[in-house]
């Protein structure tokens, strides 16, 4: 890593002097494409996420059974590879005889909706505050930094539980609350980046051309923040999904009978030692979703990082 950084720096020193015809003139688009294709982590991560999003969208077509239909005669069936399993219920069934595969497939919808929704809510709060604090500085920055410290001092999950308990659980409430509690990372990163960009000469040039603060923020600063915002978004996606699962597991998130992976783990935990698949299967699904989001985020950070490009 260090090695490539140094040679990038060396390349940078030499390159801007080169004739542009000599440079081979890779456009930013071409460089981007090459970086994407050469980044295995990003390809795997985005592959997983893309697959899960497709599953969520086409859940009714893929699921072999209705995830809500209970059947007392086929309770707690083991998966097909265990003794007593059958191809009718490939991944077995739960305490109420509902098909486990179908419930997992429908659970994707909840997890992805909440992940995207909460990460978006956090994005709007965090980026707005971060850019304002970084751009204006002074007492505005002090006030927003105080807000940040206050938020960081609060125990997130406990607060979320209390809030859901007071407002009442529903998927929209969970999205709102998880989002409102996960904006700090956006704020920290965009504030620092904005401060750095603010001191560059092209901001002064824009001011000298008569641009207002709002025009400068939209036109000059936000485009430069885009790559870091995308990266944080994917990280927050994973965190929000885990937060939803925790809330559901604790009984204050998604309410039965809606299928949610966290809820399924909670429901399966009484029988964990005799029928481990009830806990293991939704756990694996969560694992893949979160690792997919993280790999994608890591990859995006590497791919969009300006090192060796914007200097």
């Amino acid at each position, binding site marked *: 890593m260090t*090695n490539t950084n140094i040679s990038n720096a060396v390349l940078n020193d030499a390159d801007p002097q080169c004739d542009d015809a000599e440079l081979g003139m890779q456009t930013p688009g071409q460089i981007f494409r090459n970086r994407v294709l050469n980044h295995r982590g990003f390809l795997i991560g985005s592959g997983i996420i893309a697959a899960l999003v497709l599953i969520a969208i086409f859940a009714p077509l893929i699921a072999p059974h209705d995830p809500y239909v209970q059947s007392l005669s086929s309770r707690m069936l083991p998966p097909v590879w265990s003794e007593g399993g059958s191809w009718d219920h490939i991944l077995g069934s739960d305490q109420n005889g509902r098909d486990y595969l179908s419930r997992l497939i429908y659970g994707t919808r909840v997890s992805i909706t909440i992940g995207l929704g909460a990460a978006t809510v956090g994005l709007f709060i965090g980026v707005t505050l971060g850019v304002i604090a970084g751009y204006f500085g002074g007492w505005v920055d002090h006030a927003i930094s105080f807000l940040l410290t206050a938020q960081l001092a609060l125990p997130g999950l406990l607060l979320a539980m209390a809030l859901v308990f007071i407002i009442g659980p529903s998927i929209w409430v969970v999205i709102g609350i998880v989002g409102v509690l996960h904006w700090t990372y956006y704020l920290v990163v965009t504030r620092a980046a904005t401060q750095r960009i603010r001191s560059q000469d092209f901001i002064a040039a824009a001011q000298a051309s*008569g641009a207002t603060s709002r*025009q400068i923020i939209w036109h000059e600063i936000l485009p*430069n923040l885009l790559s870091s915002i995308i990266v944080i978004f994917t990280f927050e996606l994973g965190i929000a999904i885990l937060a939803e699962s925790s809330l559901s597991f604790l009984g204050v998130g998604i309410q039965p009978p809606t299928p949610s992976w966290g809820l399924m783990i909670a429901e399966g935990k009484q029988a964990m030692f005799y029928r481990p698949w009830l806990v293991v299967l939704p756990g694996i699904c969560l694992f893949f979703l979160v690792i997919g989001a993280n790999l994608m985020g890591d990859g995006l950070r590497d791919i969009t990082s300006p090192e060796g490009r914007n200097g």
Partner: protein
Amino acid sequence: MSIILDIQSLNISLSLPTGTLHAVRDVSFTIARGESLGIVGESGSGKSLTALAIMRLLPRGANVTATQLMFDDHDLPILSDEAFAKTIPGVRIGMIFQEPMTSLNPVYTIGRQMTEAAVAKGMLSAAAARKKAIDLLDRVGIPDPEARLDQFPHQMSGGQRQRVMIAMTLMLDPDLLIADEPTTALDVTVQAQILDLLDDLRRERQMGMILISHDLAVVAERSDKVAVMYGGEVIEQGSSNEVLRAPAHPYTQSLLQAIPHLGGSPGRLGSIPGTVPSLMRPPTGCIFAPRCSHSRPECFTARPPKRAHGGDHLATCVLEQPPTLHNHVEALLGSGAKDGAEDVLVAQNVTQVFYSRKGLFGPKREIRALDNVSLSLKRGETLAVIGESGSGKSTLARILLGLSVPTKGTVSMLGKEISTLSGTERASFVQPVFQDPYSSLNPRRRLSEIIARPLELRGEGDHASRTKAIEASMELVRLPKRLLHTYPSQLSGGQRQRVAIARALVTRPEALICDEPTSALDVSVQAQILNLLDDLRAEMGLTCLLITHDMAVVHQVADRVVVMYQGRIVEEGPAREVLANPQDDYTKRLLAAAPRFEPELEDAE
């Protein structure tokens, strides 16, 4: 004199994701004890890499080969990394870097940093090391050295830190000192002191010295020998006198003509067409041939020979006789303000005071950045504001641009007070060009967007008329149209600075304020930009306020000059008079410190 460093045929290549960069090729030189070698070259010429290779400080992907790499009696390539680290760097070869602000560790005292190496290597006891450190600090000119030992780097100025760095490298009494652009980050007056100091120390201790610089004048004054590097090769070397006064290689000649000189009358600078070559493939012919005005067909097909021009003066060129250097100075195209021209920009009694506090309730400190400054800029003239760092010249630029409001005093543009104007109205009067072309363009926008932005902000014209204005503006600054849709990262420093000027000109402002427009650029690129400013004066009667620290640049382009020192104007007048006959002590000091050399050019007549 015994040879201390002998390098023959040094090659450095770096493997990059896109291929192999042949950064340094076939570099040979020797240095004797007490001798100094200046390595001159523009950025990307491989001069720093050569120094780093001697110190084994290259990045890991680098591949170094040499037929000979002898330091004193050590054959460097056969030393293991461990043995090398123990015996060579610091102990025998000292190195000073460009940036004194970052080369000292901010969390340790000066004393600890200075004595650490000597004590750790068991060369001196702690007490002896401390005593030696005090002596050395005294020697490099730090007042009250004993108390200074317990201070931290942030308590010192840039010049003092560079002195500390020099003292630190001398702690272990090295036989060779490598100074990589030791004064580039410093003010002119400080630069002169540091260079004098290095010179004295070298003679005193019989050290060998490699002085790496992009500044030919610095090298001309301070070195016995010079090696001129271009595109990773030493294209000419020999004694300083011969190389700089009778250059044999066309590149050295063009480089010398590209430098603005303090002596003589100002004229057009020589510029080198084209750009620095790519080093991704080893060259088949002469590396300079594509830009050379004397090139012949064989220059492109065969490597040029190393030709001696008397003594050890070598040039890598096919020409047997160096081309005659013409002393013909082409007159500048632009002319100054006409008599009775109106004032475009007037500052009256501008005072700027900053307040700083230590902690929340600490005492208020007052910093007077500008103290009662008055100046006026007439239509069609170029007014230079000269001063060192801390003189308040950049604060003045921000105030004149209307970006900050002065504590006292007024700025008016064509008779209208600046505070009564809206942002876009102001923009049509005056536009900035900044020093660093790498930070003055938004990296996420295409050139067309960057140049069109001021028009968009004013809501001027439709798409077609804007495209026309952009193209006209790009033509003014000699940027080819094919660059219209590129991003700044794809351009060279000089091209970026042209874009910045094009953006400033697109709204046809009354005046430009250029804040050190060429100090981040290479000599040959600086020549292009200064010539461009001259063209613009001739073509459109450009009115320009030029802020700079470089006396030679003032001489080259300014009609009038204002000298600033610690927030005040100490001298003002026509450039020619002020430079020839300075009245104020500070101006005299500035002029004396400016490195200068006048190559004796052979007359064509």
